[in-house]
């Protein structure tokens, strides 16, 4: 327990585990409610059955992350449609898409085992059921289902393990789960957190599997006590995971964070500030870049830090580049007129996209600016994060400098720097506030043609909380308080630092530097 990362992981366990159990149980219940009747309906219809099992098998081949990712835009469109037609919108973020995708995912084992279980019943027993005068429904309920139950339970077990495992992937679409440990740990190179998340999910899956196995063996051997013990065990897990969440006062402010270290640090900092001001807050981390702005506009989250250039390009669809101050002014006005997200202020530093190279390699090649780079680009390999090469900033850079690399690769941001330092790639897309730039002795290349817009970190508040004075007052001390050197240092402290620092610890450090100014 001496490691602060383990203590922090345990501190967040009730929230993450509770959400994980809730989303898994709901998805499993929904999956069962759909697949059991479907299996029963298809029992006498071989054509249906083939189609059904085929469809379920195809669903199963879709990777879990892709399945979850597909449901978000689908529901977003549905929510917009329902808002327009019925006047009632619903949240396309988090719980709903996660439950739907996981429910779909859980169906195949239940379908297959129900069909197999019913098929496997001794025909003599079915004949006897009809012979003693049962209707087909009575035969199903009194004889066939009870006899197939052990096989059906085995299917439910498989489903439960799949759903609990796959639920860790629902973090990027805004559903808090044990995956939060894994995603944030991966971003901040906090392997303790990654391991903790994996272990917690595995322990939960094994516990549920074993309890269901107990029920299954109880059903097969007609020992009611086993069935009851298994049922009670599962009920205890569900209750134990959910009760702390209910008894805790509901958090009134939800802080969103994207999927990189700086965002985790700033979300932790905002949470600490709100808590200090007596406001109950919770974090939803690991949200996709476009997910977070939509969620903010829909007031599904209340506070987030975004970057002026991102909104400039992605939401305002501006391709021109203006100076920092003008961008901020226009941005503030545009947000106020388009949905009502409030720009509280800029934090004081920029986290711009930039191209960076190892200092020694840049000097050896005589490269100082992107213009220099462009001449040698056909011999060089570039790496970007998952978004970079599909972002308008890259298009602007490419067109302004006629950049064409020998090869382009996509990488996990935290690994890009090490890859550049090791010479595996020559140029990477870097973030100007990233602490790793100094750590790996990289040099940020100049942008003499100003192809990349400014990326001021800005504090945004949802339309619903735009006039919340207590919230705004708590956030105000952060405005203009953090320069790029401080942010780089904090980022370095949160990820890949020598001492076992966490985003929360880095946020404390950051506040200590800021509060006396």
């Amino acid at each position, binding site marked *: 327990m001496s490691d602060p990362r383990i203590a922090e992981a345990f501190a967040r366990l009730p929230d993450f585990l509770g959400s994980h159990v809730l989303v898994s149980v709901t998805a499993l219940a929904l999956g069962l409610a759909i697949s059991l009747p479907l299996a029963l309906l298809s029992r006498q219809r071989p054509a249906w059955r083939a189609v059904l099992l085929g469809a379920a098998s195809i669903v199963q081949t879709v990777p879990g992350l892709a399945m979850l990712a597909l449901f978000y835009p689908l529901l977003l469109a549905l929510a917009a449609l329902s808002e327009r037609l019925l006047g009632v919108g619903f949240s396309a973020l988090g719980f709903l898409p996660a439950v739907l995708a996981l429910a779909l995912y859980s169906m195949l084992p239940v379908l297959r085992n129900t069909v197999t279980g019913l098929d496997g019943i001794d025909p*003599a*027993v079915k004949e*006897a059921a009809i*012979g003693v005068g*049962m209707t087909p429904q009575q035969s199903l309920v009194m004889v066939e289902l*009870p006899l197939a139950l052990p096989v059906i339970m085995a299917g439910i077990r498989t489903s439960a393990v799949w759903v609990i495992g796959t639920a860790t992937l629902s973090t990027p679409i805004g559903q808090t789960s044990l995956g939060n440990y894994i995603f944030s740990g991966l971003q901040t190179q906090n392997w303790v957190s990654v391991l903790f998340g994996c272990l917690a999910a595995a322990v939960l899956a094994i516990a549920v599997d074993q309890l269901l196995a107990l029920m299954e063996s109880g059903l097969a051997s007609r020992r009611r006590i086993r069935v009851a013990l298994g049922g009670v065990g599962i009920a205890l897990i569900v209750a134990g995971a959910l009760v702390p969440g209910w008894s805790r006062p509901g958090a009134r402010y939800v802080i969103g964070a994207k999927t990189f270290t700086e965002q985790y640090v700033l979300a932790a900092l905002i949470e600490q500030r709100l808590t200090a001001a007596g406001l109950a807050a919770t974090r939803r981390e690991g949200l996709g870049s476009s997910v977070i702005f939509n969620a903010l506009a829909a007031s599904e989250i209340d506070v987030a830090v975004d970057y002026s250039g991102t909104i400039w390009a992605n939401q305002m669809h501006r391709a021109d580049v203006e100076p920092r101050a003008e961008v901020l002014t226009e941005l503030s006005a545009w947000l106020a007129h388009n949905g009502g997200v409030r720009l509280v202020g800029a934090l004081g530093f920029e986290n711009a996209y930039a191209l960076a190279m190892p200092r020694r390699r840049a000097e050896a090649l005589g490269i100082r600016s992107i213009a220099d780079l462009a001449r040698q680009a056909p011999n060089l390999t570039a790496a970007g994060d998952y978004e970079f090469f599909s972002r308008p900033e890259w298009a602007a850079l490419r067109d302004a400098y006629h950049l064409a690399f020998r090869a382009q690769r996509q990488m996990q941001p935290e690994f890009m720097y090490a890859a550049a330092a090791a010479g595996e790639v020559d140029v990477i897309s870097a973030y100007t506030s990233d602490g790793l730039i100094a750590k790996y002795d990289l040099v940020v290349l100049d942008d003499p043609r100003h192809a990349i817009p400014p990326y001021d970190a800005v504090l945004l508040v949802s339309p619903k909380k735009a006039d919340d004075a207590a919230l705004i007052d708590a956030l105000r001390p952060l405005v203009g308080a953090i320069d790029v050197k401080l942010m780089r240092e904090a980022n370095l402290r949160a990820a890949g630092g020598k001492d076992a620092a966490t985003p929360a610890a880095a946020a404390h450090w950051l506040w200590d530097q800021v509060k006396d100014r």
Partner: protein
Amino acid sequence: MAQASATIAFEDVGKTFGDAQRAALDRVTLAVPEREFLAIVGPSGSGKTTLLRLVNRLAEPSSGTVRVAGEDVRDVDPIALRRRIGYVFQGIGLFPHMTVGENIAITLRLLGVDKPRMAARVGDLLDLVRLDRAQYRDRFPDQLSGGERQRVGVARAIAAGPKIVLMDEPFGALDPLTRDALGSDYRKLHDDLGLTTVMITHDMLEAVLLADRIVVMHDGRLIADGTPRALMSEVSNDYVRELMQTPRRHAERLQTLMERGAGTTPQ
């Protein structure tokens, strides 16, 4: 010709399965009077089971008419029909997930009999088939011997007080001792309860010892019909004569043994 008074009557009944060349039943006409114990004997595939299944509409005839208590079964709700006809299934046919008590009470439960009456009736039925109430009621079928299981099967068949009991090779898989005991026990029940029983068997000895009347089936047709005594003595058909040889030979051999045993003292 079938008499109108018969409890079960097959009138010119035919049955073909799918597009099979040979008929499973070929123009069978047979009447079973009230309280008769009829045995149907014949080799595998002779149509015995098919004939039996027509009675409670587990199968439907392709032609002809089946009557139960004078009514064309096509006019009777098959579910109600099955609930008033007892059926002892080939093999076991007990529900493996139900206790002995639950198995016996199943038809009563389907008929909506209340729990106390159901429990009392199950106790009586266990007595009737000579199984100890306390010991057997809560056991599961896989905890019983073959003979005990078939006793439960008989109890289940007569639970709802049917007038007709159909039995499909009920004692076929049992050892000879158990088989004999069960056979004579059932025959007593048949007489005491005034049942009409149709029993399928491929064992002529069993048929001779239990039944009032035996019909022999072959290739979907009735080839002999008579009392055991009549079939033993005067038979025109070769196959039937061969069938009747077995019990007669057994009887003769026993007779010889008994006479010799009575006359001499072993040294």
